[in-house]
């Protein structure tokens, strides 16, 4: 125990003096997430607000054939502009992306309309162009609404109730809470936290193994009358401490920056108060043992600091895999998934942000499962440290 503590203290002191470790643990990890997140949120808020409020400029060919329809569209905040000269020109303009959507009203529109034959209105658009999707939907929606209004009017004139046109009344009930909606976007957060945690200990994990070997300080260290297991435990625990510091800074940083993000305007009220920050820390911190031992393990195989850096950076990406797969498949949390480190932390954190009650069984399985896997990796590191080949 004494040896572990001595090694732990020395690694902590030494790394607090190492600018590289400090920058990665106390600056990079904690700040990277909030800044990137604030940027993405602000951008998406701006875009969605712009789109909803702004008047839509809609090029129309043959606007003079349907003056009533044009007035109706203008009442729905759509500016009618002159379209291209011909239908063919409109198709060309849309296909090259010059125009997002063009409406064509044929010359016989008025005649068909007054004869109560279905009058054709063409909406020219490019389905592959995702940018145009919103405008198209708005234009088509407005036309549809006009069509229904006219239909209802015609039925009323004939003494028929317009409700006959709607045998079904479809009413969608959205049960998602504002916190729930925010969870989709805030699900990204768990990766930022895990990333911050890992970067916090990265430099130390490399320095304690590959770095020590490269400087030639490993061999004299192994000549000391101490168990090699204790040396490696001290180093791994020191890396865990830096990871925990980095994680807590990152969480605190988010707690404050989220207030300045216009999340309310997106209909989100993220649940990220001091209690959630504390709970999130407790849920995530067991992952530090997995991260520290995994990085130490990877660095033990490498010959130099540089080589170790390359491989350990891969470890930074590893925890994203389960999170990514689950986000795509939209998997619900289950007890089995709680055995997977990083994934279990992600799912629990999302639940926490959604303001869902914590499933204590899930928490227990996540914490114990993660610690067991971390312990196993630490044990493998200790085994590796007993090898002769360690000195390279």
């Amino acid at each position, binding site marked *: 125990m004494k*040896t572990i503590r001595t090694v732990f203290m020395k690694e902590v002191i*030494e*790394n607090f*003096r*190492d600018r590289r470790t400090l920058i990665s643990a106390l600056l990079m990890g904690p700040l990277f997430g909030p800044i990137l997140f604030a940027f993405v949120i602000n951008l998406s808020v701006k875009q969605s607000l712009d789109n909803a409020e702004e008047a839509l400029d809609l090029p129309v060919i043959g606007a003079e054939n349907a003056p009533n329809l044009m007035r109706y569209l203008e009442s729905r905040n759509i500016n009618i502009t002159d379209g291209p000269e011909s239908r063919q020109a409109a198709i060309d303009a849309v296909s090259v992306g010059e125009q997002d959507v063009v409406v064509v009203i044929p010359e016989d529109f008025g005649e068909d309309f007054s004869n109560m034959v279905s009058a054709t209105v063409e909406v020219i658009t490019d389905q592959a162009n995702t940018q145009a999707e919103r405008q198209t939907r708005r234009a088509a929606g407005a036309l549809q609404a006009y069509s229904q209004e006219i239909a209802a009017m015609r039925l009323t004139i004939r003494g028929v109730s317009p409700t006959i046109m709607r045998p079904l009344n479809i009413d969608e009930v959205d049960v998602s809470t504002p916190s729930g909606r925010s969870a989709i976007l805030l699900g990204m957060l768990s990766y930022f936290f895990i990333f911050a945690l890992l970067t916090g200990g990265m430099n130390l994990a490399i320095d304690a193994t590959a770095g020590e070997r490269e*400087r*030639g300080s490993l061999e004299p260290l192994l*000549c*000391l009358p101490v168990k090699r297991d204790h040396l490696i435990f001290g180093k791994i625990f020191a890396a865990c401490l830096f990871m925990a510091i980095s994680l807590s800074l990152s969480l605190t940083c988010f707690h404050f920056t989220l207030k300045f993000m216009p999340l309310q305007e997106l209909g989100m009220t993220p649940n990220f108060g001091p209690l959630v920050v504390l709970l999130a820390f407790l849920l995530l911190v067991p992952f530090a043992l997995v991260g520290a031992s995994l990085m130490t393990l990877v660095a033990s195989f490498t010959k130099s600091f540089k080589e170790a850096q390359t491989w350990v950076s891969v470890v930074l990406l590893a925890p994203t895999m389960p999170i990514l797969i689950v986000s795509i498949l939209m998997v619900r949390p289950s007890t089995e998934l709680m055995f997977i480190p990083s994934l279990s932390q992600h799912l629990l954190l999302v639940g926490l942000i959604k303001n869902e009650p914590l499933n204590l069984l899930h928490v227990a399985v996540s914490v114990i499962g993660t610690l067991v896997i971390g312990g196993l990796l630490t044990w493998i590191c200790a085994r590796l440290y007993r090898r*002769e080949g360690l000195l390279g």
Partner: protein
Amino acid sequence: MIEVENLRKSFGDVKAVQGVSFTADDGKITGLLGPNGAGKSTTLRALYTVLKPDSGTAKIDGINVVEDSVAARSRIGTLPHGAGLYPHLTARENIAYYAKLYDMPADKIDGCVQTVIDQLDINDFADRKTKGFSQGQRTKVSLARSLVHGPQNIILDEPSNGLDVMATRSLRELIRQLKRDGKCVLFSSHVMQEVAALCDEIVIIAAGQVALHDTTEGIRKATGCEDLEEAFVRAIQMVEPE
């Protein structure tokens, strides 16, 4: 006292050490002399238990290095080849770190650290971070930290490598002082003159075997050469590679 008997160690096909035996007594300086790649470092590494010998035994004060490696290590102070320091710690902290790992009583550490600092005359830079130290300064600090617990046996792997004349001189004086204190000093070198100037006994190793084990005079007689360098070359040639 260090006893080595019929030590063998191979790395794959390379037979680094092929049956080395010798004894280094207390109160004597024993030099392990041999050309590059003769197996000096491998022998020493087996002694300070970083490498496990394939066969044969090595004992430190009667303790087998394989069977009880922690106890054996506690009886030696080691300066491995090219030993490095922690750049962000001061010289004093580097030494104190080792003192703690040697499990010295907490209240004695500061005193013992100061004693070796005085002994090696490194007060001038004892409280500076070791980043940017010269080779001589680094060697002195490395040596200080391996002597901090007052070990009975001292194993030095090419300690004078990269040292200037003044530093080499003070190193020699230190080794003589250790001898006067009744310690067992074993060091390796590939420079005959250095070994001759310092050692009571010389073990010449070539191709992983002991070519000669004698005093300087004894080696002169055995090889029939007055000139030490000539004697060294002759001794090496006595060994037939297996």
